[in-house]
């Protein structure tokens, strides 16, 4: 109770404004937190696996998103409950770190909490549960390391990468063209990857979506695609051997930051001002021309007069190019971004083989493609599809696939999917449990049960009978001592995930276990929730 009485029996208030505050304590707090977390994870549960379903999200403005990506669903769901928010962040951190397995991590956390709830009911202290989970997690991670396999790939043999990317894409709507999409993802990553340093710079991969056409029209462009057009309709649409100037200053008379006023009091002054103004434009264009540029890419807009002068001087220009895109072009073409006209010089120009403008469909939608860049590694995925939602979802899915490929480039160890890794871990953990003294044993065993939940959910989503399937696979794994056996989601006739070619990255899976355990520990340790009242 937050109200106590002093020695004279007068009420003594510790926490102010009792009515406005919401407070839950002790076991009740843990229970309500677990319930909230479980509800969130139950939303995602049906999205897990190759046969997982999608969610349709309507945002406050009525726009529709259809997606299968755990992080996206949670982000757009507008979750309010504090602990539920933790899960949202959990999937986001998985997204940032690994880029894939965002659904799995939430489902696992939900399962861990559900198991913890049972233990709490039996009177085990939350901290003991948390510690047990911690120990179990360590065992599971070791097991993952043991059953992990390495895939060898080179720039010429990308097959293992493509297969892994395919596994990721399997659960998405674009799985009709998963082979093609996976190849796009792999090629994109490999063209920017530095295999010696095992580093992938994602900034060099750009995604552009354009509704229309078909999913299989999606392509990888070796270069940069800008969703812009030339500033003047009559500028040339194709430029060869481009020298481009990247400007972050507008083609307009400068606006000094100091507040000033210029008073014109006579005819002479007026005339002079006019001349001065004209001189500005000619000077700006002259400077660009003198530097030897034949393409101007500008972050800001142009004045009509400047625009025409550019045309007249045969200087094609693109205006209103965003800062991020400008930087990307700078990296790709080896240009320096120029903040002032006075700093324009030939050595700051970027170069590339060709720039061209392309048009789509019957409307006048245009895009500018910058190709054959000096630093040829920048690539753009142009995603096409029947409608806006598909294009958006395809973009998200491709991003996931690329993340997975990147992770493989960084660390080429994999585990097998289809729940096989979880089952193997679960068996190892429960074996370990028997050797542990004290109440921790229960917690460790609960962890093993929670791990089983992933293959269960997979089987459930595939329309198999979950418990039967899990029991089969488990006994098979034990009998054959083969950790590659998992749930046969695609009904292809074999449980061996190695044969089916269902890979997941080892770091992805490890991260899932680590993050989920961490969050669960955190939730368990909360025994008092005080929410501030609304500001009046």
């Amino acid at each position, binding site marked *: 109770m937050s109200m106590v009485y002093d020695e004279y029996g007068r009420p003594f208030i510790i926490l102010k404004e009792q009515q406005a505050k919401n407070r839950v304590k002790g076991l009740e707090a843990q229970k309500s937190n677990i319930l909230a977390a479980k509800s969130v994870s139950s939303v995602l549960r049906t999205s897990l696996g190759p046969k997982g379903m999608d969610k*349709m999200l*309507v945002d*406050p403005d009525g726009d529709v998103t259809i997606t299968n990506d755990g992080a996206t669903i949670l982000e757009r769901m*507008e979750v309010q409950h504090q602990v539920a928010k933790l899960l949202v962040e959990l999937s986001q951190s998985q997204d940032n770190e690994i880029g894939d397995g965002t659904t799995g991590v939430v489902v696992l956390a939900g399962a861990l909490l559900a198991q913890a709830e049972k233990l709490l009911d039996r009177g085990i202290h939350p901290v003991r549960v948390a510690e047990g989970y911690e120990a179990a997690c360590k065992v599971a991670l070791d097991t993952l390391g043991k059953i992990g396999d390495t895939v060898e790939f080179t720039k010429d043999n990308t097959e293992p990468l493509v297969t892994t990317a395919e596994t990721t894409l399997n659960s998405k*709507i674009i799985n009709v063209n998963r082979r093609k999409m996976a190849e796009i993802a792999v090629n994109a990553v490999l063209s920017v990857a530095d295999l010696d340093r095992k580093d992938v710079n994602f900034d060099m991969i750009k995604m552009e979506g354009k509704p229309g056409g078909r999913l299989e029209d999606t392509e990888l462009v070796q270069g940069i695609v800008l969703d812009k057009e030339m500033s003047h309709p009559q500028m040339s649409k194709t430029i060869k051997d481009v020298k481009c100037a990247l400007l972050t200053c507008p083609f307009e008379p400068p606006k000094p930051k100091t507040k000033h006023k210029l008073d014109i*009091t006579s*005819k002479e002054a007026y005339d002079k001002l006019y001349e001065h103004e004209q001189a500005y434009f000619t000077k700006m264009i002259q400077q660009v021309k003198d530097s030897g540029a034949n393409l101007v890419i500008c972050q800001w807009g142009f004045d009509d007069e400047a625009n025409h002068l550019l*045309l007249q001087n045969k200087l094609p220009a693109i205006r209103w190019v965003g800062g991020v895109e400008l930087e990307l072009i700078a990296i790709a073409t080896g240009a320096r971004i120029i903040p002032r006209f006075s700093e324009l010089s030939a050595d700051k120009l970027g170069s590339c083989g060709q720039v061209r403008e392309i048009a789509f469909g019957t409307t006048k939608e245009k895009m500018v493609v910058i190709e054959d860049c000096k630093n040829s590694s920048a690539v753009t995925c142009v995603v096409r599809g029947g409608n806006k939602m598909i294009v958006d*979802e395809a973009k998200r899915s491709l991003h996931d696939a690329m993340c997975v490929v990147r992770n493989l480039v960084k660390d080429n160890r994999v585990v097998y999917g289809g729940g096989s890794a979880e089952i193997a871990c679960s068996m190892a953990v429960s074996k370990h449990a028997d050797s542990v003294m004290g109440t921790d044993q229960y917690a460790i065993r609960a962890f093993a049960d929670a791990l089983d939940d992933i293959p269960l959910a997979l089987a459930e989503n595939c329309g198999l009978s979950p418990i039967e399937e899990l029991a089969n696979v488990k006994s098979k794994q034990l009998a054959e001592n083969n950790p590659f056996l998992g749930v046969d989601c695609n009904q292809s006739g074999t449980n061996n995930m190695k044969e089916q070619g269902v890979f997941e990255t080892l770091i992805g899976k490890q991260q899932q276990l680590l993050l989920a355990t961490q969050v669960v520990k955190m939730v368990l340790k909360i025994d008092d929730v005080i929410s501030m009242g609304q500001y009046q």
Partner: protein
Amino acid sequence: MEQAYMEQGTQMDKGDNARMSSFVGAIAIADLVKTTLGPKGMDKILQRVSQQDQSISVTNDGATILKAVNIDNPAAKVLVDIAKVQDDEVGDGTTSVAVFCGELLREAEKLIAQRIHPQTICKGWRLARDAARKALEEHARDNAANEEKFRDDLFNIARTTLSSKLLTHDKDYFSNLAVDAVMRLKKSGNLDYIQIIKKAGGQLRDSYLESGFIMDKKIGIGQPKRIENARILIANTSMDTDKIKIYGSRVRVDAMSKVAEIEEAEKDKMRGKCKKIIDHGINVFVNRQLIYNFPEQIFAEAGIMSIEHADFDGVEHLAAVTGGEVASTFDHPELVDLGKCDLIEEVMIGEDKVIRFSGCASGEACTIVLRGASNHLLDEAERSLHDALCVLTQTVKETRTICGGGCTEVLMAQAVDNEAPSIPGKKALAMEAFARALRQMPTIVADNGGYDSAELVTQLRAAHAAGNDSYGLDMYNGKIGCMDELGVRESFKSKLQVLLSASEAAEMILRVDDIIKCAPRQREGH
């Protein structure tokens, strides 16, 4: 309890409820536009709801209808979106794509009621779609090599597109018009060169194709009304007093005489500008912005025709057509490309004066002048003609064509049906459903024509089974007939796009098992 963790006002539909709401929404949208399908389809009146503007438009164009409808159902929005994309991409088949998607979902609803998992249905649909696509590609015909035949194809496509629209009575006339216009473009397919001008009055048949460019503007007062061998300067510049563009400057004077001086300076500046323009050696000046009286008078004195306030599109068209550039500075006459054409004159269309540029440098340009009894009629005629032009330009690029009149749908359905028995498992049921949905398309067309659809479609199916794979619905006689003889053709690209994007969208809707609706944003002042 379920929703305690969500933001207030958030709605969540799960499982069957979510699916139900998607089906209901999507099917409702499909039913809405269903009656406009086919040559005997009906039109819709759209009336705006806002207090100030209650204008109406009458249309048969699926995309136009769908864009105008206010929708709250997320699945319905997907349908609207695919219709829009179809409109942008091909320009025609907007109704078909929405209706086909709706029919697919209607079939899916039945399958779900039989406890077949949505993912299984998707799988079956994909197999079916591939089979259908193969059949479509096999039956496509490419006449690009033979110019005469290709023209016939284009003509037939235009006729088929127009037959479902308002222009159906004069479809031969308009088809010729559209084909002529597109053929002028040669292969460039740039619709910018075709301009459509609407003038109320007269009848639809009075519409004509004008070679050259027509601008619905007036020539300045006291200036020549007819100019031969015109040299045109096309500009985008302000012809009132120029703003001073240097930041922070303002005029401040201390005596009336100074005001007069400045005014004089302003005038001088404008006079200088006009002189520079005249020095280009031009006899026609077209500006995107207004031309004030003062410069207009200067031009009149110099014997130059000036046209003011030609809107942005007009200026761009004119620039493209006459080969001039859009200029904004006038210091270097030698660098500016002037537009050229043989003759500029003021002509009358109905009661209105317009300016005609004929004999332009680029022979691709032409203008279609539409005449008609009312503005609504003209708007709809423009939309229909635009559809036809879009399809034609797309066909010029992708030259394959296929039979219309429900022929291809039945053909694809047959291909899917042939494939289905060889597929084991529940997927086959989904494939059959796909075929049924395909066959629904001619059924709806026949229904809209008031014919016995069941009878006709089964006859059609029998004809196809007997090997007459060019048979389709003859909507004028209410029987089936050979589409080749009747000349009902459609563009391959349009049909393929309908097939793919409708099934893609249907699949997308079907895969959803949760709908989470955030609380609508509170807007101020409503």
